[in-house]
């Protein structure tokens, strides 16, 4: 089953009088359960593509079917709900709230989705941080912080996990732990899209999509 179908997706920015084509004619199909890496040098359009896939941004042209639903042209207020129901985000800089404990950070998305049920215990168990639940982020290592961020991304039972350079701020040992976690999640059937310029990381994926100059050159 195709979870994501984009056809001729494009994004233009205006920079002064110039129009920058950050992404052009991106057509890609991602099946449920895939572990996929979006790779390319900086400026290749991979971050733009990921923002569009994550419904953080709206395309200038083309179509994007997420789980059979057209996303292109939706307003931010609709996109919020789509994100909440479908997508979990993991960022390079973790973005944990420094004032909240590990458990509170994991539960943060539920603050904005009161109908959601907390499964923080289960998720903390999954990422191996049950013993750290009452700690503050500043008391954790980078790898631990990223695992908290992964648990947070999963709390609303998303269909897709989008990870933007998830190991970019980690040493090799912690990188491996985080990648091992992604592999586990993949085995459990989660669809995962990694955005990276690190080919070592890309090797973990079953499929690599390459971008250059705003176009998909290999998929």
């Amino acid at each position, binding site marked *: 089953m195709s979870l994501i179908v984009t056809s001729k997706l494009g994004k233009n920015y205006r920079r002064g009088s110039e129009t920058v084509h950050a992404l052009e004619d991106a057509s890609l199909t991602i099946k449920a359960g895939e572990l996929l890496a979006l790779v390319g040098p900086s400026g290749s359009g991979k971050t733009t593509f990921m*923002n569009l896939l*994550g419904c*953080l*941004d709206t395309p200038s042209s083309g179509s994007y079917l997420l789980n059979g639903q057209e996303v292109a042209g939706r307003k*931010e*207020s609709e996109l*919020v709900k789509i*994100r*909440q129901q479908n997508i*979990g*985000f993991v*960022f390079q*800089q973790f*973005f944990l*709230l*420094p*004032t*909240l404990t590990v458990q*509170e950070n994991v*539960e*943060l*998305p*539920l*603050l*904005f*989705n009161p109908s959601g049920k*907390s499964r923080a215990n289960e998720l903390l168990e999954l990422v191996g941080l049950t013993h750290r639940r009452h700690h503050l982020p500043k008391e954790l290592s980078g790898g631990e912080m990223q695992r908290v961020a992964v648990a*947070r*991304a999963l709390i*609303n039972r998303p269909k897709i996990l989008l990870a933007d350079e998830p190991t970019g701020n980690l040493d090799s040992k912690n990188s491996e732990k985080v990648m091992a976690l992604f592999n586990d999640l993949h085995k459990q059937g989660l669809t995962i899209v990694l955005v990276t310029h690190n080919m070592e990381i890309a090797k973990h994926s079953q499929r690599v999509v390459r971008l250059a100059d705003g176009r998909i050159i290999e998929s």
Partner: protein
Amino acid sequence: MIKFLQVALKNLFRRRFRTLLTILGIAIGISMLFSFLAFSQGYEASMRGELNKIGAHMLAIAKGCPYEATALIMHGGVIEDFLTTDDVLRVSEMPNVQSAVGNFMNQVVLPHGKSVVVFGMNEYTFAQKPWWVIRGERFTGENSIILPETMATELGLNIGDVYRMPGKEIDFVISGLLEKTGTQDDKFVYVPFATAQRLFNAEGKVTSISILLEDLGRVQEVVDSVESLPDVQAITMSQVLATAQTLMSSAQAMINSIVIIAVVISALGVMNSILMSVFERTKEIGMMKAVGATGSDIIALVWIESVILSLAGGVVGILTSFATASFIETFIRGLIPFAPLGELLAFDANTVAISLMSSLVLGLVAGAYPAIRAAELSPMEAIRSE
């Protein structure tokens, strides 16, 4: 599970010092507002209280400017024109007049714009100041004098000493000291009635007549009969109050603008503080939007913070006003032309409620712009911002 209030509180604790400073800023504004409200209430009440203490329903004076008349009645300014003791007698015989007491006061003008205000006192005029506490004796002879305690201390004089009245160069023996009243009474000197009249070559004259009525419903009748006497003007206490309030209006306007400026400054302080905290958290706000926060969720978070700040400031401000009421009284007494006796600040539940409501509104208004700015951040731009 975590709640909005907890997230907001924890964030305020993250920047303790800034939070504290902002709360202090609001506290100053709300404290001024609260004191001002308390003052507006207290002033009229104590003004009425003071007028009641005059022990008269009405005063008769020589025709003149009503402002001067009010000044005279409240605090012993000086009118050059006198009434006569015959007038006192005539007024006392008018229908519906219970009693009429003649008052005498005048001033010795000294070089450099200074003056000594002299009051003539007799049993009737002493009776009008029942709250006075006099140490020593009232008068021991026609050349005895009562000085306010503060003045005596300044001059290094005590009971039994000789006081040479400046300008007149006449010696008086101090028979008593008036304990501090906290009013203008502390600035005048008091001699026997006849002595005062003689001192100003005004034998048989008075400066005003205090009139008590039998039936307050028939004030106008008495006003008419008093004003039928040649060159006599009647002033009722409600007129005095109205005139005093007119004179108050410029002081009131000044206090108003100080209060408004203070409140606006504290609102700007809250806005600045919240705006800074929004800018610092751009990425966090972007993350929250990415994980499902709507614009209204973000507005709620920011707004809760600014309301917590301003309500805390309001509470601190009100408590500060209570704690510093006497200092504020002194400050206001220096600002206004007529400071009546008694408490100028009247604190009540209403004043507290209005002040708290104002700090709530202040928080909502000051937080609105930062909240909207935060809500409008695009999640992608916010996460990317450096």
